[in-house]
């Protein structure tokens, strides 16, 4: 008797929510509308508080698990991937700048060598030109000196010959005068007289 009353009371409470007290168990077989009323107790489903506890528990379990997975596995992993890539890019950039530095050094060394070589070439050319010029000057001086001595010798010879010729002129004149006198007057003139006469005419 007591049990039945309690049962009746409980079904009434349930029924008040479910619109249909008597056939709470059988309603879902009749119509779709009643089926839904039985499920949602007539409340808009998202506001149905009867399953809030279950929702919260399962949300805590699933989201808690998700949070753990994210913080222990996924985030360290993606963070690691990004870190590695970042490091690698930085490393590659360093390598690139190092190589660029080497290339720059090589270029400047090349340019230095080029400048040196040009300077050396210039100096060699200068030296060669200088040497050639000096040699030409020396040769010219030697030739000129040679010519000068030859000219001097020739002039000395000419002077010699001229002096000799001039000295011969007196003797020839004396002989010619003696012969002329002999032919003209048939006599002879002494040598001393003729020489004095030649000297006198030469003195004129």
């Amino acid at each position: 008797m007591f049990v039945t009353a309690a049962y009746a009371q409980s079904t009434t409470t349930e029924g008040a929510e479910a619109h249909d007290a008597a056939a709470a168990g059988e309603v879902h077989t009749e119509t779709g509308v009643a089926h839904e009323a039985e499920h949602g107790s007539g409340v808009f489903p998202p506001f149905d508080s009867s399953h809030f506890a279950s929702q919260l528990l399962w949300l805590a379990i699933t989201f808690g698990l998700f949070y753990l997975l994210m913080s222990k596995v996924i985030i360290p992993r993606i963070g690691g991937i990004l870190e590695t890539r970042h490091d690698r890019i930085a490393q590659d950039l360093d390598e690139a700048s190092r190589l660029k530095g080497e290339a720059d050094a090589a270029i400047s060394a090349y340019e230095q060598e080029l400048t040196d070589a040009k300077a050396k070439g210039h100096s060699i050319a200068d030296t060669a030109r200088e040497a050639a010029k000096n040699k030409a000057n020396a040769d010219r001086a030697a030739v000129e000196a040679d010519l000068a001595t030859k000219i001097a010798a020739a002039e000395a010879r000419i002077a010699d010959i001229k002096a000799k010729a001039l000295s011969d002129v007196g003797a020839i004149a004396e002989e010619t005068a003696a012969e002329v006198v002999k032919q003209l007057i048939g006599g002879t003139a002494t040598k001393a007289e003729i020489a004095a006469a030649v000297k006198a005419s030469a003195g004129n």
Partner: protein
Amino acid sequence: MSNDPTHQFLVNKIVPIEIGGIDFSFTNASLFMVATVGAAAGFLYLTTSQRGLIPTRAQSVSEMSYEFIASMLREGAGSQGMKFFPMVFSLFMFILTANLLGMFPYFFTVTSQIIVTFALAVFVVGTVILYGFYKHGLGFLKLFVPHGVPGALLPLVVAIEVISFLSRPISLSVRLFANMLAGHITLKVFAGFVASLSAFGALGIGGAILPLIMTVALTGLEFLVAFLQAYVFAVLTCMYLNDAVHPGSH
């Protein structure tokens, strides 16, 4: 019953569990929470398993979501806020995946349950309060006293600040819940028009074209909303966490 737009939000028991008189049944909502976790964690796990220096497309998606949340948090809460990165990232990925899974026909949308979004919002605000008091002690209360307010106005301003702080879990949860709920109901209503109009012969099928176009357009919009609401939730979480990290700075 299939034309009832709220039918999709019904929670059905799959494995009834009752502990201490309280119903903890494994429901379709629980199933889709598990599916959300499985899909999100599985995607992130599998796409990053190669640890490629040059990422594949899928790995790029995982990396982009990581960097997206990281930059959002760094902008919102500064570098000191980065200790909350696992939390914000988990929230964003969980909500985004739950929203997107909800876009599949016949799938249950976990985020269309007010209790779920409210629990997530309480988790955020609870973290803000606990960390704020743990880190700054009573200095955390400076949050409610903005700088440069005249003394006469201070009680009013503090009251407004307290109310706005207390309304955060509500606004945060209702925004997400209402967007998902309204979007899915609208979709269902327009799709229902297509089905019921096309039952009226040729003229009905002609008339069904308009709601069909509407349904297609709304589906696109809902994908946007699914992403946008996850983004908004994450951004607001970052802003609230900023209050916990720097309580006197606003």
